């Protein structure tokens, strides 16, 4: 029972890291970026290449996945994305889904279509018993890392100067610019942060979720669910939503395996009926 709860939390945390970048771009920058999963995939492949081709330790791969993906994010933001900030949502959707297909084809071409596997360092493998609760080491690692990340992120957005600049830039770009905030740099950095987090999530997820060129499409639906259920106004929303969905998904598959795959959608529908704007909606949200 508690093992299921633990697995659910780990899974939810992983979903959160993967999806929170999307909630940043969607909620704060008001950009529908369906290519978010492609950044996660990039992080995963960076880890695979570093570990399997160059034998670099897994712990170094995580920050590398974050920074390299963030860099790719900035590059794309500067060259492609920023042109579409003012476009309609339909254009953004078409553009980013096109990017997804391009990334799938590119990865398939360079890396092949097969599942990519990594071997974790021995201390992260296996599990131990803690007062009768079976705890997977790697899942515990994910929980600790993601919890720390969440706290840091929440503080960064609410307590730092950059956070308030970002919120100002989103609320009213023109006034923010008038106050001397360099809005375009703020957006570029935010986008980089979002893609970097996706990359980190992809790197962490390789072991649990698997990694192949279809990753962005396979998990797009999960990201979207997390963001819709959580609402896009804060970090807390998607965080609670990801935990809720992770636990519901794992528990559902354990207790009613026949219907397991549908539980997550059931939860989404329930939440959206009760709170159409997500769990934590911003009043009069944009």
């Amino acid at each position: 029972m508690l093992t299921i709860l633990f697995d659910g939390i780990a899974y939810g945390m992983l979903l959160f890291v993967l999806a929170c970048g999307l909630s940043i771009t969607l909620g704060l920058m008001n950009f529908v970026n369906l290519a978010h999963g492609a950044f996660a995939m990039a992080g995963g492949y960076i880890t695979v290449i570093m570990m399997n081709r160059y034998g670099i330790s897994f712990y170094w791969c995580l920050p590398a996945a974050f920074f390299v993906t963030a860099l790719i994010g900035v590059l794309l933001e500067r060259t492609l994305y920023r042109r579409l900030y003012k476009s309609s949502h339909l254009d953004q959707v078409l553009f980013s889904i096109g990017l997804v297909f391009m990334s799938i084809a590119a990865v398939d071409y360079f890396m092949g279509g097969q599942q990519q596997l990594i071997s974790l360092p021995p201390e992260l493998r296996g599990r131990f018993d803690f007062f009768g609760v079976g705890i997977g080491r790697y899942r515990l690692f994910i929980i600790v890392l993601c919890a720390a990340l969440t706290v840091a992120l929440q503080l960064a957005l609410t307590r730092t100067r950059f956070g308030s600049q970002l919120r100002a830039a989103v609320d009213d770009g023109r006034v923010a610019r008038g106050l001397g905030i360099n809005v375009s740099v703020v957006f570029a950095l935010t986008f980089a942060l979002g893609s970097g987090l996706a990359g980190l999530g992809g790197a962490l997820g390789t072991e649990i979720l698997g990694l192949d060129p279809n990753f962005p499409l396979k998990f797009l639906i999960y990201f979207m669910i997390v963001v819709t259920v959580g609402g896009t106004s804060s970090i807390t929303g998607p965080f609670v939503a990801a935990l809720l969905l992770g636990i519901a998904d794992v528990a559902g598959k354990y207790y009613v395996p026949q219907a397991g795959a549908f539980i997550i959608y059931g939860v989404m529908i329930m939440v959206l009926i009760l709170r159409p704007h997500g769990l934590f909606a911003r009043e009069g949200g944009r």
Partner: protein
Amino acid sequence: MITRRIFIAGTMVAALAGTPSFAQDVVKIGLVLPMTGPFASTGRQVEAGVRAYMALHGDTAGGKKIEVVLRDDAGTADQTRRIAQELVVNEGVSMLMGFGLTPLAMSVAPVLNQAKIPAIITSATTSAIMKQSEYFVRTSMAGPQSAVPVATWAVENGLKRVVTLVTDYGPGHDIEKGFTDQFKKEGGEIVEAVRVPLQNPDFAPFLQRVRDAKPDAIFVFVPSGVGSVFMKQFADRGLADAGIKLIATGDVTDDDLLNAIGDPALDVITGHFYSANHDSPENKAYVEQVKKAANNMRPNFMSVGGYDAMHLAYAALEKTGGDTDGTKLVEAMKGMEWTSPRGPISIDPATRDIVQDIYIRKVEKVGDELYNVEFATYEKIKDPFAAQ
């Protein structure tokens, strides 16, 4: 509307295919495989098998020069069908070959029935396909062929209480039923039957459920790519330490991925029709050729299906003396027997399906690499569902 379109296309196909092709010295074989998309590894393996056969046995059969026309269907059924039609109408192929998945093979059945052209299935495995057309012949695996001997072996080796875990799609259902029927007949008990969704990100809850059910063993079928993820989580969750044995069909310990799965795969027992480690001169030559031609890739059970499909095509052409009439070719293929790299195999004249030995293997270290080492053989297994 669709029926009319199919009718028109069909008559066109039939008309064109009907024109005599005796004069030509080249026999074209249309190879339709998923070369891109999620099932690209299947395509690459089958292609490697086909090319290996041609490299080892030349490109003439029955006095004709063989030419393979490879097309990519990206794993989507409507494309497979369109490509098959184009190959028949525009390229004038005498045989079709390939088909990575059940729905892809199913989709070409109407084309075959109207054009009267044989199609050799190199990969798709469900029992239902063969009934769709008299022109299907199969060299991969017939339904749950590999699962049945695993059930027998399990009971013989004292594994009486088993949980089955299969992926929730056609081949998974076939395998589950094949295993369960045989296992119950031998006196075993199925504690629980778990089906996991095809798009399943995480096996954790299912594995926990299996662990709590405390069976002697878990029988698993998942598609080969997913198998590697499954194996790792199986090891991580400590099911082996809890005394639960892992038995499976060979898809889980796919030769192509086995080394990447690494140590968690050690000691896993699987039943399957091909191992790259199979000890025979045919297999040695074959593995060597594939590795040489395809960048050191190790051939897996998919690629041997392609190799044998080519053998069947060659042998049928020899038998008809180069006559490319589709019905004659299918007749020639029925009852054909030969020694494949996987061991002795034959085509059942009644079902046009493959009859082959199934080997029980254990994953072991051979040198630096992991291999499925065969240690028991169940001879001449047929599709258990075909008789029903």
